[in-house]
């Protein structure tokens, strides 16, 4: 299910600019609120680039650590999300370049994705069968996402996983709202060709 936890700018009691200002004064609580608000979005963008959940988690975390450490360099605190996503993209692309030295593009490598999911299953605490099923689903999704462009993956992950609206996606990624809609439309159309209908609970008829 897409989560709508803490969409940016509205649900949280504090605006990004206020939280950034507090963080600059060393307020750990402000940093925590921002991390809860944007860490998963950072993961979504990192996943769009790397195609690997573990790499995406690492990239998102390291990018956020960097963002907090260099918060004084954030010139437009009200656009913290966009600044953070730039850091995430750069780190993810650097990692992807490094990874390509030892293996193919992970988004093109179904086997790598399945190994990834199998490894994930060994660390989960839930029912092993359920975990395995989710791992398989995740692998299927990653393979389907591999058919998209990076921009399409970013939009579809921020929209469907993070639950952001197009205006929020556009602001964070430096796109127009219309472009975000177009990318999502094209992405969904491609994904329908590769995924079972149950992946679209809102319903679609192909």
């Amino acid at each position, binding site marked *: *299910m*897409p*989560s709508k*936890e803490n969409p940016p700018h509205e649900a949280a009691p504090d605006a990004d600019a206020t939280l950034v200002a507090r963080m600059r004064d*060393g307020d*750990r609580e402000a*940093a*925590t609120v921002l*991390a*809860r608000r944007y*860490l*998963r979005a950072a*993961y979504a963008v990192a*996943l769009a680039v790397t195609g690997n*959940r573990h790499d*995406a*988690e690492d990239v998102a*975390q390291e990018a*956020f*650590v*960097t*963002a*907090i*450490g*260099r*918060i*004084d360099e954030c010139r437009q605190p009200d656009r913290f999300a966009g600044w953070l996503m730039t850091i995430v993209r750069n780190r993810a692309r650097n990692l992807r370049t490094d990874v390509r030295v030892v293996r193919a593009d992970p988004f093109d490598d179904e086997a790598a994705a399945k190994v990834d999911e199998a490894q994930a299953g060994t660390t*989960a*605490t839930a029912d092993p069968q359920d975990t395995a099923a*989710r*791992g398989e*689903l*995740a692998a299927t*999704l*990653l393979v389907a996402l591999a058919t998209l462009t990076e921009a399409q993956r970013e939009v*579809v*992950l921020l*929209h*469907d*996983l993070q*639950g952001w609206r197009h205006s929020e996606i556009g602001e964070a990624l430096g796109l127009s709202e219309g472009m975000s*809609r*177009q990318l*999502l*439309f094209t992405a*969904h*159309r491609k*994904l329908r060709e590769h*995924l079972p209908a*149950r*992946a*679209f*609970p*809102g*319903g*679609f008829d192909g």
Partner: protein
Amino acid sequence: MDEDRMDLSPLDPSADGARWDRMVASVVARGMAARVAARRTSVADLLARWRRPALALAAALAIAAVPVLLFAGAEDEAGGTAGSTVAQAVVEYAWADTTRPIDVLDAYGR
């Protein structure tokens, strides 16, 4: 445009709430530590940035002082100055037990 949302929950890292909370806490702790380190570094950078101008200023002052010192030296050779006499008396007082403090004071009074 279609606004359906795909179910991407198998890719959601926050599905395991406890693990996600630990991840958030870890990120914040490391980020705040990095921030403290960055501030320390920026102070060191600031000092490093000022080192060159400070050295350049000192060198310029030293160069500018050369003609002044030469001029003072020439005056000394010509007839001596009050400053050099006082310095001479202080040095003599410091090195010789025989010189009385009053001589130094006399030198200042001259």
